[in-house]
């Protein structure tokens, strides 16, 4: 069903292949392959819940149970303060970005290796693969968001105008997840060690990020140092937007976190693009 016009139009596309010359076509290709983002993400979601009895309910159950455990340990046993918000909401507001970040990291780290067959046999912008992994995690994020709404309704907890900042914050957490994911996925192609580092990183990160507790628990003099963890800024931002007015953002820390997120994202992009051309040879 290729018409003559079609051929004419396509023929105008001239492609030049040369060492080190993929730059120009790359972003155009990325646009041409936009449907592949969707298809790969769709595949991963579909596959994940195939042959499970409760299916997609796992996506809701897992964060809910984690929240329960964290609330019991930090809220009930350790008795950390939660301000005016109920402890489960305090925990869950932080768990949203954290789970998004940690899931993205886990999915990304193995994404390229898991699709080795594709990479060595078909051309498409490699950026599609880790990005789809992040998109999959984002779907989980949205499902978890539904739980948060449920929790807020349960506690009759109403957000303020600050909730309007949420889309921006989501974008920032996207940047953090994507940036780190790009680094890890690209490094993992060459150094398979990263597949052992990531689970450790994710487990460790849950405790050094302010997920189970408010970051105000950390003594003032350590706050800036603490913000070296870029997730601290992201999580604080989420709490600031969702919880009531008594959450104060520690500005220097937030700026530090944000610059680190930007650095991670741009650096990740740069490193990925740099190593991408050798993926098919190395994988």
């Amino acid at each position: 069903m290729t018409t003559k016009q079609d051929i004419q139009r396509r023929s105008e596309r001239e492609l030049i292949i040369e060492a080190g010359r993929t730059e120009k076509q790359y972003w155009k290709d990325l646009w041409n392959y936009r449907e592949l983002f969707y298809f790969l993400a769709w595949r991963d979601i579909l596959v994940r819940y195939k042959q499970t009895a409760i299916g997609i309910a796992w996506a809701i159950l897992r964060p809910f149970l984690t929240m329960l455990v964290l609330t019991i340990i930090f809220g009930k046993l350790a008795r950390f303060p939660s301000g005016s918000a109920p402890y489960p909401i305090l925990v869950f507001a932080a768990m949203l970005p954290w789970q998004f970040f940690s899931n993205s990291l886990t999915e990304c780290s193995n994404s390229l290796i898991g699709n080795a067959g594709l990479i060595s046999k078909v051309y498409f912008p490699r950026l599609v693969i880790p990005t789809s992994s992040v998109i999959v995690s984002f779907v989980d994020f949205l499902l978890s968001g539904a739980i948060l709404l449920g929790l807020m309704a349960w506690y009759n907890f109403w957000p303020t105008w600050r909730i309007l900042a949420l889309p921006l914050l989501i974008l920032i957490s996207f940047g953090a997840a994507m940036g780190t994911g790009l680094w890890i996925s690209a490094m993992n192609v060459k150094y398979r060690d990263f597949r052992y580092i990531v689970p450790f990183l994710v487990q460790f990160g849950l405790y050094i990020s302010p997920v189970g507790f408010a970051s105000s628990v950390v003594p003032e003099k350590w706050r800036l140092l603490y913000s070296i963890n870029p997730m601290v800024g992201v999580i604080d931002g989420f709490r600031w937007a969702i919880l009531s007015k008594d959450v104060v953002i520690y500005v220097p820390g937030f700026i530090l976190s944000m610059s680190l997120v930007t650095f991670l994202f741009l650096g990740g992009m740069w490193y990925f693009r740099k190593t991408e051309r050798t993926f098919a040879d190395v994988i």
Partner: protein
Amino acid sequence: MSDTVIKADNIGKKYRVAHKKHAPYTALRDVVAEKAKALGQRIFSTFNTLSRDSSSEDFWALKNISFDVKQGECIGIIGHNGAGKSTLLKILSRITEPTTGRIRINGLVGSLLEVGTGFHPELTGRENIFLNGAILGMSKSEIKLKFDKIVAFAEVEKFLDTPVKRYSSGMYVRLAFAVAAHLETEILLVDEVLAVGDIEFQKKCLGKMQDIGEKEGRTVLFVSHQLFAIRTLCQKAVWLDSGHIVKMGPTFEVVRSYEKKVLQSPEKSSSIVKRRSADVKNKTFYIGQIEMLDTKDENTNIFSYKNSFVIFIDFLGECESNNFAVEFRIYKDSGEYACTGVSNLLHDISFQKDTKRVRIDIGPLILTNGKYNISFRLLAGMRILDIWNDACSFHIIECHPFALRREIKRPVCVIQHTFCAVE
């Protein structure tokens, strides 16, 4: 030129080959260890200039490759394993970068380097069609449009909603090929994907490929080890050997010289075959050796069309009956029965029990190009004394009447031959 769609200029691809038994990827600890070693070596290199890094070497998978492809041409790429054929396709389809050189491509490129890339076993046939199509570069609307055709081609209508992990392997490759075959790009790169499925389906695939080249006028680059397929599909061929172009031109010329070269390499052809002892356990009378000669009495197993040749059969053991007959059958390498000859039924010749050697004159060979295997039987009446399947093989090259672009279906035939005993 406007009708040149691919112009490759001096392409080269260099790989670094590690001599040590390395995994294909590096582990961080190795890098750290290597760096430490290198540092150590640098310190000591003033004392010992010989300690240079010799653990890796450059290897050129392709070098100085230049060619032009015109609109609508179908080009076959042949060569040994490791000649660089697949690397060339990988470079053209942008999976990997060339180290040197420049390629200009006009038009959309689709590549089929493997059948079923991206198929996921957990997904159903329907889902996999969409996924695989998207991976190959089709848009969703395009796949929807071709969906019914794909399903009909693959003959999997009933199993569309079954996960492909429950498919038979035949169904799996049929579906995979069907998706790929409906990829509509102006330039198609195909790597050895026709050798899938049963004979029937292979023919269907070949037919589809022919349509793509001839009816739709698209440009095709085609890698295959099946010279028959190359002959059928391509007008031009390129012969690659260890990264260089050996010959380029009309298919029949290139393929002929390739065949000659390949068959002349000594390990490929053996015109004297000895029986393995494991074959003759519990046999009292059997064929011990086969020798093939051309009409000039030279040992060979490569013949041209209409050549004649001679086979000497040596017998071992004691024959229990008074006389016996010899039968031979010639099979195509693909297993099809080509022709036969029997001493007693066709010539009324039986050999005395003490015959030690028999000569068979076979030919002229009215067989098409390719490899043929010969099986032998020794018969005493209706009793089979010995069977030696695929005892030896020969090749037919330069088959002019059949160097056409279509397959000629030949029935099993009895070819001209004579038998006689040798004292």
